[in-house]
């Protein structure tokens, strides 16, 4: 319903009352600006949290062991708990349905040497699934596979930074590295979003490590990825159950936290999730407060405006204006001002957020603050509706004043 004449009337009225229109526009623009900044900064915080956990898979669980701190079943305090292949297989058989990925880990520290370059690095002996648990990104070659494990091959996957240290610009794939006196074939080069430390690692088959370094079936830790079909609560109870079962299998006191623990990302996720939910709730509360203040501001101005124009409305009515046409005239003007001003506020807010960018990430944990399309569309709708309300209520009242009274007004 585009009525050029009505728009002409509205522009004439806005143009005649520039200060008033600018003031009411400013109220709305400012409210929306604050709203945008608030939302953007919280989304920046949320981004920081997400990237802090980006290193590992969101569904990972780590089973780790240390020394017992409580006597149990005649066993003394201070016993070192040792995980073995049998424990790994027990978990694998017992919980197959609840597990997506599973890998053991043995930690070693070795000097890696290629030609004249040598350096000491952390080396992890793992299963092939480890790639998905650690979100290892293969840049060249391949990761470890089942065949490597069966054959106990002396193969190695090295981090991007090890490759730079030892090989520089030259190709590393297919070359042999000397590790602690044994020769390993480089089959892959990887990178990792977890940062530099994660890229100064090397991975070898767990079976190879067990055979060469100790000739036993010990493992340091079991890493799991729970089945993504489980929801957070189910995943948390799975973690608790696993913890209880392993303690009983390994003869550990049920409450002995320092002997065996399962670090469950589901719990961290749940905590972060509820923290972010509270943060968003606060923002929505404060943000809608700001918006409401803006709406009340523009309502006030509209009430004043309509009082000022009562006589004009009386004249228009005497000339044949129907009440509804006056209501629409005011509402359309109000919606027009709120929409334009709100859009300006929104654009300015988005622009400021883009200026901030990642500059606050180091000190304030705000990463890439921005507002989503849904928020923008939602805020625009809120603006239009608020313009409607802000204009409609006083306009309806003004339109209902008898023309004789309106004409008498000054």
């Amino acid at each position: 319903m585009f009525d050029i004449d009505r728009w002409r009337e509205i522009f004439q009225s806005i143009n005649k009352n520039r200060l008033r229109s600018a003031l009411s526009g400013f109220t709305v623009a400012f409210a929306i600006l604050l709203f945008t900044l608030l939302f953007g900064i919280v989304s920046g915080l949320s981004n920081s949290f997400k990237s802090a956990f980006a290193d590992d898979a969101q569904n990972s669980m780590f089973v780790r062991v240390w020394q017992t701190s409580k006597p149990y079943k005649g066993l003394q305090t201070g016993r070192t708990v040792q995980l073995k292949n049998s424990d790994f297989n027990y978990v694998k058989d017992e919980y197959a349905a609840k597990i997506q990925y599973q890998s053991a880990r043995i930690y070693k520290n070795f000097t890696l040497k290629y030609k004249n370059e040598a350096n000491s690095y952390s080396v992890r002996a793992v299963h092939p699934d480890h790639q998905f648990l650690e979100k290892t990104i293969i840049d060249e070659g391949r990761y470890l596979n089942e065949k490597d494990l069966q054959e106990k091959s002396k193969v190695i996957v090295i981090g991007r930074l090890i490759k730079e240290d030892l090989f520089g610009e030259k190709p590393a794939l297919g070359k042999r590295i000397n590790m602690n006196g044994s020769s390993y074939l480089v089959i892959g080069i990887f990178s990792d979003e977890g940062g530099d430390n994660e890229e100064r690692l090397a991975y070898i088959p767990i079976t190879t490590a067990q055979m060469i370094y100790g000739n036993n079936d010990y493992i340091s830790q079991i890493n799991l990825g729970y089945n993504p079909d489980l929801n957070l609560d189910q995943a948390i109870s799975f973690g608790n159950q696993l913890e209880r079962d392993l303690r009983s299998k390994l003869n550990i006191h049920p409450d002995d936290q320092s002997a065996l623990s399962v670090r469950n990302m589901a719990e961290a996720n749940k905590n972060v999730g509820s923290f972010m939910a509270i943060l968003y709730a606060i923002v929505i509360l404060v943000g809608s407060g700001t918006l409401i203040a803006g709406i009340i501001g523009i309502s006030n101005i509209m009430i004043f405006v309509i009082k000022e124009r009562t006589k004009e409305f009386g004249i228009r009515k005497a000339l044949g204006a129907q009440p509804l046409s006056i209501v629409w005239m005011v509402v359309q003007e109000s919606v027009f001002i709120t929409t334009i001003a709100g859009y300006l506020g929104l654009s300015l807010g988005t622009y400021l957020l883009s200026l901030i960018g990642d500059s606050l990430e180091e000190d304030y944990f705000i990463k890439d603050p921005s507002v989503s399309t849904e928020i923008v569309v939602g805020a625009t709708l809120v603006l239009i509706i608020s313009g409607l309300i802000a204009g409609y209520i006083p306009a309806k009242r003004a339109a209902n004043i008898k023309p004789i009274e309106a004409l008498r007004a000054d």
Partner: protein
Amino acid sequence: MPLNIEYFREKINQQMIKIEKLHKSYPIGKESIHVLKGIDLHIKEGEFVSIMGSSGSGKSTLLNIVGLLDIHDEGNYYLNGELIKDMNEKKAAILRNKFLGFVFQSFNLISYKTALENVALPLYYKGVNRKDRLEIAMDYLEKVGLKEWANHLPNELSGGQKQRVAIARALVTKPKVVLADEPTGALDSTTTDSVMDLLKDINNEGMTVFVITHEEEVAAQTKRIVRLKDGIIVSDELTKNAKQASHV
């Protein structure tokens, strides 16, 4: 065909405004003031009537009711043969736009619109398109001698000019009745004469003109004077203008 003759006789005697036993009170606090106490008034098409009376006599109230700006309490009011009853704002607005033109003492022009736009405004509410509106409005401005002032704002015009713009605005929809509430009240004697001449011209073209005034000189230029006192009509007589006109 006798029926046809009857029809024409009725048409000739058509009452433009017919008021029977009209009453109006205004509440003031707990009391109420009885302003119009049973007015009977018949005005035919083409009459030039002035209502005289001191302030408080009820003449403005009468004009407001006739102009559908206010509603009466008791009695009947027929405008152009239509009984005015159960008026809502929308219906009143349509009738005002169709049948009535207003001229006010304080002109009531819209300050941010030019003379031309002010004159064209009633046509906007009538639904005439912009091009035609401005053309018609310009014709009427020319008629009141203000074509050169078409694009001036009201505050750039003299009192007499403003009232002529208001008259052009009242005429632009070709109403049945022009209602003028103290049209010369804010003008000096020279401009008063020019405005009255304009109203006379309009009446001579056949339009019904209904003027409210408290000035004898103004009333004397109309064709019929109705005097109100304390809410009742005390006299209703034709002036010599009317007698002259009927002799011509």
